[in-house]
């Protein structure tokens, strides 16, 4: 015992964690990391020789390691102690603001996505308005850590708009959002904009579309505190501050998601979970239809959007009689056929910059 303390330490530690790792029941979901965990793979000679088994078994061992949350937290607090202000490509800026770390444009992806959008604009140009929402790092640049040179979103978006202008209308959201950059327009721990930021976006879009915007003060606001968003789940950086979500009582006639009638604009049960943002428009669905109460016109709007739109689109229920929201990630039919079959007055393409770049489903615009 006295002669071999290190060996005994190693042996007992390895033995305890390997045995408990095998016999403890597997968890399906990690709240801390906001993702599903790998499960034990079935062994077959075929999967072994194709190298599939070894890969998924290793993932299983890592994901189902006993007390995984403890180890994950130990690592992140060690990293903070060592002065790290980033993890998993999320960067901690000033005032507890988390940012996505994007240093360079992935030209190949960007080009293929812009080509798809251009093709789409050539087909439906006269009705189409394109709005790319800048992500927080482009607007809250004074809160970025010193020496970090993020990608210049403005010039990239500008060059896209230049190519789109002959065919479609474009909405530049930089001036409005920059003017309000001192306000709470982006969540600190999540990649989305707040309902306030979305309202400024809405106001700016109303100008582009020739509509009258409804002021925020016309609805009652409610607060949900203790929100830790996607940037936090990805990085778990200590020093991040919890967010507060404000939602507004916007009256609507009806809301349906993928053909199922819903009760109102929000799924309140989601406010109780970690993934609070998915309360807006009941999360992401292939097709969502919102009918407004006492709208100022009888026009119909189609919005093609990523989840940034979930906090903006409801504001339009005061301006349009019917709003159809499509999330291409969950929408299987041909989008062009769908537009031709339905008679929309306006089409809005509303994506965040990072979302437009990361979502492969943007390519479905071609079909």
């Amino acid at each position, binding site marked *: 015992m006295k002669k071999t303390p*290190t*060996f005994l330490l190693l042996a007992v530690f390895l033995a305890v964690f390997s045995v408990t*790792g095998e016999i403890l029941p597997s968890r399906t979901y990690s709240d801390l990391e906001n993702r599903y965990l790998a499960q034990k793979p079935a062994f077959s000679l075929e999967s072994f020789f194709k190298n599939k088994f070894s890969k998924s078994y290793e993932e299983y061992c890592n994901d189902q390691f006993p007390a995984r949350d403890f180890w*994950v937290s130990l*690592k992140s607090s060690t990293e903070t102690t060592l002065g790290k202000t980033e993890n998993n490509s999320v960067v901690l800026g000033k005032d507890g603001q988390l940012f996505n770390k994007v240093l360079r444009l992935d030209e190949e992806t960007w080009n293929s996505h812009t080509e798809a959008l251009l093709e789409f604009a050539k087909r439906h140009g006269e009705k189409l308005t394109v709005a790319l929402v800048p992500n927080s790092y482009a607007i809250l640049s004074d809160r970025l850590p010193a*020496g970090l040179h993020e990608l210049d979103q403005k010039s990239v978006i500008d060059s896209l708009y230049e190519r789109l202008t002959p065919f479609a209308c474009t909405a530049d959201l930089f001036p409005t959002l920059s003017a309000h950059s001192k306000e709470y327009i982006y969540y600190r721990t999540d990649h989305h904009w707040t309902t306030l930021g979305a309202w400024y976006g809405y106001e700016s879009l109303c100008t582009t579309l020739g509509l009258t915007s409804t002021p925020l003060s016309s609805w009652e606001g409610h607060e949900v505190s203790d929100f830790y968003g996607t940037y936090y789940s990805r990085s778990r950086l200590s020093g991040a501050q919890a967010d507060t979500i404000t939602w507004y009582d916007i009256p609507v006639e009806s809301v349906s998601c993928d053909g199922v009638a819903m009760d109102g604009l929000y799924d309140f049960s989601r406010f109780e979970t970690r993934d609070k943002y998915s309360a807006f428009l009941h999360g992401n669905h292939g097709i969502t239809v919102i009918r407004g109460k006492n709208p100022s016109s009888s026009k119909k709007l189609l919005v093609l959007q990523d989840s940034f739109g979930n906090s903006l689109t409801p504001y339009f229920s005061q301006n349009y009689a019917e709003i159809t929201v499509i999330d291409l990630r969950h929408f299987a039919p041909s989008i062009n056929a769908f537009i031709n079959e339905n008679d929309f007055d306006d089409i809005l393409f509303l994506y965040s910059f990072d979302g437009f770049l990361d979502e492969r489903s943007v390519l479905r615009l071609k079909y």
Partner: protein
Amino acid sequence: MVFSSIVFLFRFLPITLFIYYLCPFRLKNAVILIASLIFYAWGEPWFILLMFASILVDYCAGLGIDACRRHEILWGKRAFLGLSLVFNLGSLCFFKYSGFLLDNLRTLGFAAPVFSVALPLGISFYTFQTMSYSIDVYRGTVKAEKNILNFVTFVCLFPQLIAGPIVKYSDISEKLHFRRVCSQDLEEGARIFLLGLGSKVLLANQIGQLWNEMSSIGYENLSAPLAWLGIFAYGLQIYFDFSGYSLMAIGLGRLLGFTFPENFRFPYASRSITEFWRRWHITLGSWFREYLYIPLGGNRLGKARTILNLFVVWAATGLWHGASWNFVLWGLFFFVFLVLEKNFLGEFLEKHRIFSHCYLVFLILISWVLFAVTDFSSIGIYFSRMFSFSVSDDVLYYLRNYGLILILGIFFAVPLCRRIGEKLGKYPVLRFVGMAGLLLFSTAYLVDATYNPFLYFRF
């Protein structure tokens, strides 16, 4: 499988050691063999056949050489040695270099086809290992192994199977036939293994992320200070990566009762390139000296021939690290400075202590650019950024994020850390706490591993 993974540490290793310690000695080699085959086949099931072929050829060659010696058939001895060399070098060339060769022929205008084949795991290591065996048997410095189980165990021995150190048959032949694992082996083995694990997981992987940043920023966008910081990080990463892996191998060997040769001895504390290569990847350096440089005549055939011999050895050393011209250039870079040091620079360096340290660090950093960046135009860009005098605040961000871990890295790369470690190690409690810390933090970093490459894996 790699040592620094949850599946190795918490499945493979405990099961293997448990069975190994319980079974009687006559079964121990068989246990190692089965464990090693699982270890190798995990993630690379098919190439095990190639390894078996190589083992079989060398086993027969050894016996053949031995038999011919007894019957004094000189040509037979040569033929068996030739068989071993041709098979090993042939498979190495086919799997590692044929694609590269054809690419070059195409560049020269020949109609050579495009050829690419996956590199069998550890081929560069085990072919060198088995070749050294046949050569040693030919030279008469070791006896041919009669027991095929012992011979297979020697080649497949999992601690050194895929990334060295390059263990020669003579290093462990005695232990292959009989060994006893004493409590000192267990304790030292565990300690060396944990030091290696910590080097790899806590230092190499973390510092390596800084080097990775360089390519995600884009070499052309780096400021001069950041370009230097980046290659400095790479230098520390590759050292801790490789020396850590060697330490883990040596520690595991000890746990099984074997003693493997040392592979790294604080290379960055060297004062000349000559000294550096006596401290860096020692088993590879001595392999080339023993089986290439000296057979070519070494330094006994006059100055010009010595230089030619050095040229051949260093071009080969470079090429061994990868089938690409930048590795050849990297090897020849050392050749140039070794020749200079042999002829006049050596004495000067000997006299000037501080200068010689700066000289070494500067040259090694330059050499790592040649090593880390594989295409020539990118190498050019990287050098132009290093010597560009362009200043920007970008380096501040990376110093803030990596400053402390780099300081830790520097501390553990110089002999000072050994002296301090030895002093503190006199207190058993402190030592125990240190080892427990290594184990705990390494586990945490492995469970949440976002970045865990292994640089020498493919050589």
